[in-house]
């Protein structure tokens, strides 16, 4: 992957598990993306408002504000600006997954995830949105 091309794209990773946050940050930074992180929904929301990322990668179960609430708030504050949402979940429960249907450009990935697979999804979305 051409490292230099991705610098302009920002990725926000929100996860209360520092190990997961760190490895995804490393993967996306190695691919040349500008990565910002948050350890809970509240932090994720405030970083989204300040940094205006192109991609939001979030866990669901988090302290203070969970991923479900954060995604709803982000949708409200985004004012229709396009962004990709990737929700990482450990549950197979429909109730916890269905909210993703209400968000445009959102996908749900079940743990354990592959950082390489996630990188491909992000790259595909950003390439597509750049050409559109």
């Amino acid at each position, binding site marked *: 992957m051409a490292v230099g091309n991705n610098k302009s794209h920002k990725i926000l990773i929100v996860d209360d*598990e520092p*190990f997961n946050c760190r*490895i995804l940050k490393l993967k996306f930074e190695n691919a040349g993306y500008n990565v910002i992180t948050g350890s809970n929904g509240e932090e994720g929301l405030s970083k989204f408002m300040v940094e205006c990322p192109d991609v939001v990668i979030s866990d669901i179960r988090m302290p203070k504000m969970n991923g479900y609430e954060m995604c709803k708030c982000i949708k409200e504050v985004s004012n229709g600006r396009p962004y990709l949402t990737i929700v990482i979940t450990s*549950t197979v*429960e429909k109730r916890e997954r269905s909210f993703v249907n209400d968000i445009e450009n959102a996908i749900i990935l079940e743990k*354990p995830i*592959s950082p*390489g697979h996630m990188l491909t999804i992000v790259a595909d979305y950003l390439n597509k949105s750049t050409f559109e």
Partner: protein
Amino acid sequence: MRITEILKPLQEMNPLSSLFHKSNGAPNLTTEISLKEILDFTDKSLLEEDNLGEIISKQKLTNKLLAYNLNKFETVLDNLNDGLIVLDSSTRILAINHIMEQLLNLKRDDIKGKHIRECNSDNKIFTFILENFETINKLVEKTEEMSVGASNLRVSYKTLIRSDGNPCGTILLAKDITSHKLTEQGIVEFLSHVSHEVKTPLNTIKSYTEMLIDTNNRETILEFCNIVNGEVDRLASLINNLLQLSRIEMGSVTLSLTMTKTKEFIENAFKIAISQKKRDIKYEIILPDKISPVNIDKEFMGIALINLIGNAIKYTPEHGRVTLRVEENQEEGKIIIHVIDTGIGISEEDIPQVFEKFYRSSDERVRDKPGHGLGLSITKQIVDLHDGEIKVISKKGEGSQFSIILPISESYFLE
């Protein structure tokens, strides 16, 4: 006296008779009334004035028999565990049992004989009946779950069919499924927690091993391997805790109670707990000169005590202090084991929930430490199995004191 006048009180006494009126010559009413004793109202000879005395005496007897049978019938209905209401083909209430009275929050005497539209009650059960009643000419059998007040109900509506095949009313049964729902909800939450707790370390293991493939830096490789190793330990500890918890909750645990020397048992548990976590903390153990033995399962009580000491060490910052103090209250026949730390403490709102399965405080200082929120739940269950008690006193930022209170067998009191 007219026959209709004689019949009227009978019908009022047994409104269900309007559902099961005579067809093909035999009464369908399921009662034990002897046919010989009941008036045959088709017998024209009874209409003669001379027979009035006989009619009245037979009517009295019939009334008694019907009242007896009706009473039996209502007793049966009132002893059902489910709510029940029976309506005729115009939604007139013919019978209602005690549980349904409570569910509707209406008094039986106020509504019996009335059409449900006249009852001035907009409860969900009546609405459900009216929605389905539009199709009284059809045979309806429908079940729906609804919440009425604090209860979750499974309500079954069924058209009553007479022996000639025609619909003649409705029977509605309401089963309280609140506890069933709570259990179901508990199972869903438990599975959701387990799924999260299992998949999170799995996720880390998968991500880091995948990244290891692209890493050449020896330091990074070492670091990643350590992370993977730690997550495998975390998974193993979760599985151990879950197995212990399920054994206890399934009731398959049989305690091997033995009279145990309290001092040795406590000192041993303390040593094990300290050796598992190497920290720069001051440890202290305060025991009375003499302690009565306790009747415990050493293996399980050891798990409980090591959990408490382990937590105290985990949440106490460097240079802090963890104290184990034991006291005996001979008057109350109890041995009390206090595990006291100078750690981060527990907030007031967290205290009532610390023994709940999977509960972990949202405090970042707690989240920073590995854990599944199962240790205290297991500890409490083990103490409960020993007819003991566990208590916690804590203040955020000032430390915690967990106390296990165990009964002493009377025969083992110290002289």
